[in-house]
């Protein structure tokens, strides 16, 4: 292969990849926004109420996670190494467990065991569980970058623990707080399947309402809900980008005596955080295992088997197809010399990642149904939309960490592009590819909102769980959840393995 041919081939690959992203992933995801231009949407009182519930829940969950998530992140970063691995797995577990399974566990624990009724309180209790890891991970990643001697220097200058946290640490890890808050808020805003189990008729969230509207065929109102949800995600992303660009905080106000008097309270946060973790996260998450243990009877039937085949098949196809396009996309983002173009495509991926999936699914359904595609193909395309960024982001980060000089060295030694890809790049990005694949696979398995918004007849595992709970078949639903827990734990161990290899 001569150099000119290779350059043309690379350009064609980039063109195909970027076209795939724009026309298959991005445009269908935001297609519903065109309804706003055409005026083809309806804002009813019920929809406004659903939006209010959604934003109230997401905001409450974000505030709770800011307090406890930041505290956990702090504890995690300062923790002794021998406990860190154990805590590390614990933080990630709610992310790996499909939210439908979490929803059932929370519903059984708070609803049947403690008689908490369905409604906003239970929705908040559920959402805190699967969003807390986003806050803990984002904040701890930032905290770990802070040089510990800054704290020591501040303490030699007389600052109390609380003053050090506010004036030294917080300005330095604010980016982690902002990212964690954005991910928490948008993930909570997006959640559908599990919310369906714990919401009441009067306290329905907007994504659940979109699914119901789609079932009724009420397109204008579903379009309005989707538009507002998508625009909210965009506004939050823009606000987050703005805040993280602000490098300096005004910290000129000090309250030495007041902050020093709160030192004991600050020290008590470890106990308060531990209690919160056990009572509100661990026990409700794992209650389904106890439930199965007490009520166990194997109830696996053909419908369940079909749901497992559909879900796993869908996730496998989505991950494989996504990976084929994600690698060149990630390479383009990581290696392009024009930083503005790189940032532009990164932002587009962030938008797709943050858009609530029921709105995303509704938009995709509207787009692809014009072409009369099969329901399963539309489902694949919708799952591809929200899993694609999960593949691209870790790959792009991995490629950015590889010095371009390594590829140049290979070139000077006579390697062509194909050889550089297969012998240099692929081995180095393999852990990121595996990690991204695991995240995309589990995300696809877990997804309910987009599936319900796009298809009428296809039953994936989470959709089946929601249906079984609706029919009050708790044992069957509980059994499927137990299988999902076991599967999630295996995937978590695989993910940890690839991270440690990386």
């Amino acid at each position, binding site marked *: 292969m001569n150099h000119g041919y290779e350059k043309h081939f690379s350009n064609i690959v980039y063109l195909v990849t970027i076209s795939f992203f724009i026309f298959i992933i991005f445009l269908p995801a935001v297609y519903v926004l065109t309804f706003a231009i055409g005026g083809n949407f309806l804002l009813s009182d019920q929809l406004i109420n659903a939006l209010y519930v959604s934003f109230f829940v997401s905001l409450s969950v974000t505030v709770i996670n800011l307090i406890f998530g930041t505290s956990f992140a702090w504890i995690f970063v300062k923790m002794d190494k021998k406990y860190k691995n154990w805590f590390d797995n614990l933080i990630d577990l709610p992310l790996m467990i499909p939210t439908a399974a979490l929803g059932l566990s929370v519903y059984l624990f708070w609803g049947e065991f403690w008689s908490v009724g369905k409604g906003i309180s239970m929705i908040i209790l559920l959402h805190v569980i699967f969003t807390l890891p986003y806050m803990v991970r984002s904040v701890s990643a930032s905290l770990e970058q802070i*040089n510990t001697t800054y704290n020591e220097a501040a303490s030699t200058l007389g600052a109390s623990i609380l003053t050090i946290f506010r004036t030294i640490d917080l300005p330095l890890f604010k980016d982690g707080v902002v990212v964690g808050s954005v991910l928490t808020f948008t993930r909570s805003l997006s959640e559908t399947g599990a919310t369906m189990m714990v919401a009441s008729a009067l306290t329905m969230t907007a994504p659940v309402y979109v699914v119901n509207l789609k079932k009724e065929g009420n397109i204008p109102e579903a379009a309005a809900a989707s538009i507002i949800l998508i625009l909210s995600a965009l506004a939050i992303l823009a606000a987050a980008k703005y805040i993280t660009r602000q490098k300096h905080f005004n910290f*000129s106000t000090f309250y030495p005596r007041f902050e020093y008097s709160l030192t004991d309270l600050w020290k008590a946060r470890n106990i308060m955080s531990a209690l919160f973790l056990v009572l509100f996260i661990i026990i409700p998450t794992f209650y389904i295992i106890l439930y199965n243990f007490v009520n166990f009877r194997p109830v696996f039937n053909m419908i369940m088997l079909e749901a497992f085949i559909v879900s796993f098949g869908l996730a496998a196809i989505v991950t494989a197809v996504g990976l084929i396009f994600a690698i060149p996309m990630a390479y383009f983002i990581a290696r392009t010399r024009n930083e503005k173009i790189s940032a532009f495509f990164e932002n587009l991926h962030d938008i797709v990642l943050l858009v609530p999936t029921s709105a995303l699914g509704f938009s995709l359904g509207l787009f692809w149904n014009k072409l009369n595609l099969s329901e399963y193909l539309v489902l694949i395309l919708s799952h591809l939309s929200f899993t694609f960024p999960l593949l691209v982001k870790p790959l792009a980060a991995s490629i950015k960490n590889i010095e371009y000089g390594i590829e140049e060295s290979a070139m000077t030694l006579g390697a062509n592009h194909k050889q550089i890809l297969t012998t240099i790049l692929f081995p180095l990005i393999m852990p990121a590819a595996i990690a991204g694949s695991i995240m995309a696979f589990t995300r696809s398995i877990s997804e309910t909102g987009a599936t319900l918004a796009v298809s009428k007849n296809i039953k994936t595992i989470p959709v089946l769980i929601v249906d079984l709970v609706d029919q009050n078949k708790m044992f069957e639903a509980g059994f499927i959840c137990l299988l999902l827990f076991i599967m999630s734990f295996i995937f978590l161990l695989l993910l940890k393995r690839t991270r440690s290899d990386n």
Partner: protein
Amino acid sequence: MPNIELRNISKTFTSISEDSRGKIITALDNVNLKIKKNTYNTLLGPSGCGKTTLLRIIAGLEKPTDGKIYFGGSDITNAETQKRNIGFVFQNYSLFPHMDVWHNVSYGLMVRGKYKKGKENEIHDILKMVKLDDRTTAYPKELSGGMQQRVAVARAIATKSQLCFSTNPWAHWMPE
């Protein structure tokens, strides 16, 4: 300025490196030391002999495994770092990256509630003494190694602490 007295100070660490995990390492073994008022003292020793560990123990950043520390006759062995009022210039300077030179130097006064009207002149005088009075709005990353060290020294002495330590204080200081 009161005397500092160290009595039988010992410090041991447990190794966490893979080839000697769990092994006890003695950094300080029964150190006795008296530092008189109004004196300038230098601790000299080969790299890794425990000089920085000793200073960190006096500053309260490490707890001694054994022994006592007295400051003006009072036992401060278990006193918090914040309460010891000891200036410390760190080996890597540890300037707060999000604060400019002025705020770095005045931080100690601010957190103690001592930064009142009139104190600006004192801060200005200290910065003039270290020849950085024209760089008050610069951030640490905009300064050279020598300038950063001077800011670290200025920060430590701004609080008028009764005792001031520095690890390798003149490493980047160019004679003029």
